């Protein structure tokens, strides 16, 4: 067989490829030719883009899809620069590999509203390089200058010769070319896809039931497993009495793992029955008396402790001492569950020389490392198959469910699917930390704030997840939105008091901003009221150095009709927050049922400035979804503790916002030249304070803790008369 035929056969299968290698300083884009050389140099590049002879463009996505539309938005970036026709484009999910790491993080993971921010530049460059190579290849085929040829919608055109050739037909000549050193990027005016509302590539399969989520994974020879986990935080297994369970039909193995006891059976129902029939003796937990009350008390006690200064400007104490008017408020916010609709699950198969993990994960690198530690296999022998995530919100960054599945699979030697029940999903979460803030502020005689002292007691997420980031003992998540408070106040101090409790805490959509936006934006409203100023005007005056903040506030206010009196019985509140480099302002319109205390949110008007836009429909969808989640936490959600554990078990005690409680939502996008901002999380933070401020506007009642449940509102209404 001649080498040219071999090459042709190879290209037919592999297509024209562009690879990216993640290097310590970022990334390098590689042609097919360079791919092999790079491998020899010790890099591990991965193919990100393949153009097939049938003219299909296959784009590999290295980020997890959990609702945020990343299987569409990332391909849009490559496809636009490549000048591919959108109908040619297919996406493929990346395996866990060095070549698919996020070039900023050096890890393959999805979070922090960063997918587009981190991937935009490499993906554009890869697309542009491929486009230039295809143009050069076509020019070569026709023997005309490349400058006379133009890429357009999946073809190259030579206008003078009235000739057109498809990308698919250029696979072979393009593959022989060197990568252009500095491929020219499109001008914004040349974008066809970027900045428009492109329909999602995953929508159809998410509509007809064919989308495969982690829990849907079915592999041959599969066993099902359920895990009995500690009956209190920190409790350890002392004895397992499973004689009855062993006799149940279909039960295959009962095995102790780090997280508890795993029951493996032919069916999930047999596994559950086995668990039910087993008596496990648990040791004492770390704090058997842990309860809502004990936690609240502990937070209170910590408030009187000295914390670490996270920010200090001017002399707050002096300014407070000499102030004309002082305000001193406390805000207490609950622990929250992620409550992804798909409960945690993971399927694993551990063999002597290979490990397969099918998992809905936000953290492929973490999964790989977890499996490596348990199996002792090399990363090349571990195959992570990322399924669709039935919601992530930070929960699926964690490794607990992977650890359980891999340990269990290793013990049974067959593929095992570990499925969590909803009860387990609520009881063994890494919760959004509860927190307590005390804010003191001073106003001068003109009503201008002269001092802002903010002390927050909050458990640390970073101390467990990224301990290296804990500079001076400060958890950046805990002081998010405080250490970068934009309101122009001459004397500011932010103090962080870390509290360690047995309750595990983790990233929850918008992280520290999910609570700090509430305290800051409610408190600024208190100050505005104290200063007898319009809450919008008051904010704008303090944000003169932050025109983007002013712009979103003004736009949301204008669209909501701020300044015109609302209908009778309706209160209006406003809030804004900067998170993940995006500015979001929201105006809420609420009414309250004075007999039940139930708040009804009628309308949320949202304005967002996230810098450049990729998919405008996704931006709207993410704002809308963020608002619903923000309202859900504002009105309904809190985790309940007692007897050293979580008492919350299911949606009957932790209900989420429902359709009847969802307001009309309008999203207005501010187009700006600012740097890219994230979009998955920033919709959440302003919703709760906007509602609380609207309630105050309507009733004069100021709520400083969440959720604003009817009974809480009713009590406050009664107390205010």
């Amino acid at each position, binding site marked *: 067989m001649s080498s040219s035929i071999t090459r042709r056969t190879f290209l037919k299968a592999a297509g024209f490829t562009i690879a990216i290698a993640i290097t310590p300083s970022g990334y390098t884009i590689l042609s097919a030719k360079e791919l092999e050389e790079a491998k020899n140099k010790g890099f591990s590049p991965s193919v990100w883009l393949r153009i097939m002879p049938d003219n299909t463009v296959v784009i590999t996505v290295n980020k997890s*899809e*959990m*609702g*945020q*539309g990343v299987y569409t938005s990332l391909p849009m970036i490559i496809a636009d620069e490549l000048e591919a026709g959108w109908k040619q484009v297919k996406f493929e999910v990346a395996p866990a590999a060095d070549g698919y790491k996020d070039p900023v993080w050096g890890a393959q993971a999805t979070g922090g509203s960063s997918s587009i921010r981190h991937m935009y530049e490499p993906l554009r460059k890869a697309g542009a390089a491929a486009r230039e190579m295809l143009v050069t290849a076509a020019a070569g085929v026709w023997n005309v200058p490349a400058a006379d040829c133009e890429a357009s919608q999946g073809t190259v055109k030579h206008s003078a010769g009235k000739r057109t050739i498809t990308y698919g037909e250029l696979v072979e000549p393009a593959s022989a070319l060197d990568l252009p050193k500095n491929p020219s990027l499109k001008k914004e005016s040349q974008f066809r896809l970027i900045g428009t509302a492109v*329909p*999602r590539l*995953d*929508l*159809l399969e*998410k*509509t*007809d*039931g*064919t*989308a*495969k*989520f982690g*829990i*849907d994974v*079915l592999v041959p020879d599969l066993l*099902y497993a359920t895990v009995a986990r500690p009956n209190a935080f920190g409790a350890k297994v002392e004895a397992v009495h499973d004689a009855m369970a062993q006799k149940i039909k279909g039960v295959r193995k009962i095995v102790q793992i780090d997280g508890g006891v795993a029951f493996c059976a032919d*069916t*999930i*129902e047999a596994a559950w029955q086995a668990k039910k029939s087993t008596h496990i003796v648990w040791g004492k937990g770390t704090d058997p008396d842990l309860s809502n009350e004990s936690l609240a008390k502990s937070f209170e006690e910590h408030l009187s402790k000295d914390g670490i200064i996270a920010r200090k400007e001017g002399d707050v104490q002096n300014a407070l001492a000499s102030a004309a008017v002082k305000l001193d408020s406390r805000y207490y916010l609950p622990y929250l569950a992620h409550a*992804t*609709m*798909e*409960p945690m699950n993971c399927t694993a198969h551990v063999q002597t020389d290979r490990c397969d993990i099918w998992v809905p994960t936000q953290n492929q690198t973490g999964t790989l490392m977890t499996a490596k530690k348990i199996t002792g296999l090399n990363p090349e022998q571990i195959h992570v198959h990322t399924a*669709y*995530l*039935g*919601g*992530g*919100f930070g929960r699926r960054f964690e490794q607990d469910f992977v650890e359980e599945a891999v340990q269990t699979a290793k013990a049974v030697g067959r593929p095992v699917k570990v*499925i969590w*029940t*909803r*009860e387990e999903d609520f009881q063994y979460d890494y919760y959004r930390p509860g927190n307590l803030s005390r804010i003191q502020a001073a106003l001068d005689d003109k009503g201008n704030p002269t001092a802002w002292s903010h002390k927050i007691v909050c458990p640390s997420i970073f101390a467990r997840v990224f301990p290296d980031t804990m500079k001076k003992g400060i958890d950046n998540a805990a002081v998010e939105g405080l250490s970068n408070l934009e309101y122009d106040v001459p004397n500011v101090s932010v103090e962080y008091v870390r509290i360690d409790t047995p309750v595990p805490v983790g990233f929850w959509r918008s992280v520290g901003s999910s609570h700090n936006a509430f305290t800051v934006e409610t408190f600024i409203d208190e100050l505005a009221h104290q200063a007898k100023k319009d809450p919008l005007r008051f904010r704008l005056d303090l944000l003169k150095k932050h025109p983007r903040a002013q712009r979103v506030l003004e736009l949301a206010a204008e669209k909501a009709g701020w300044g015109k009196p609302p209908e009778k019985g309706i209160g209006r509140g406003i809030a804004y927050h900067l998170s993940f480099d995006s500015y979001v302002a929201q105006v809420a319109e609420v009414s309250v049922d004075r007999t039940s205390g139930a708040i009804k949110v009628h309308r949320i008007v949202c304005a967002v400035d996230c810098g450049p836009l990729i998919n405008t*429909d996704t931006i709207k*969808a993410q704002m*809308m*979804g*963020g*608002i*619903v*989640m923000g309202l*859900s936490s504002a009105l309904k959600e809190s985790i309940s503790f007692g007897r050293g554990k979580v008492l919350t078990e*299911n*949606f*009957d005690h932790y*209900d*989420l*916002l*429902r*359709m*009847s409680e*969802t307001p*009309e*939502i309008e999203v207005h996008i501010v187009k700006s030249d600012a740097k890219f901002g994230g979009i998955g999380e920033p919709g959440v933070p302003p919703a709760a304070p906007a509602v609380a401020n609207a309630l105050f506007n309507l009733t004069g009642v100021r709520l400083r803790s969440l959720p604003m449940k009817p009974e809480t509102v009713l009590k406050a209404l009664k107390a205010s008369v």
Partner: protein
Amino acid sequence: MISLKVNGRKHDIDLSPDVPLVWVIREHLKLTGTKYACGKGLCGSCTVHIEGKAVRSCQTSVGDAAGKDITTIEGIPEGHPLKKMWVKEQVAQCGYCQPGQIMQAAELLSGDKNPSDEAIVRAMDGNLCRCGTYPRIKSAIRLAAKEGGK
């Protein structure tokens, strides 16, 4: 032996009649479009039709469903107005709850060709969506009703 009729197909399965239907549909029949999410009839993710009525398959035992006509998301025909409008309105985000939402909406439209907004909310209020796609679900149902009426 239990005999199930799902999407017009007959299946004979050997299992205890008290197993919740959702697990039988998903893990035994491998029709994974029907989702488990709460197991208590609180969220609607597992909604299927039995004899045309929307039921929570986590609250229905396989024994009770035996012999009856069961329809899952896989049995909703291509080109169904709800499926079309779900795509047109770009409803799904994570997508996990959507089969249940569509099954619930399908029951509504089979009985009420032109539901009011109040009727839509009443019918859909038992179906949770953590991604917050409710506004788009509502408009997709409105559009599907119009399309169906053509």
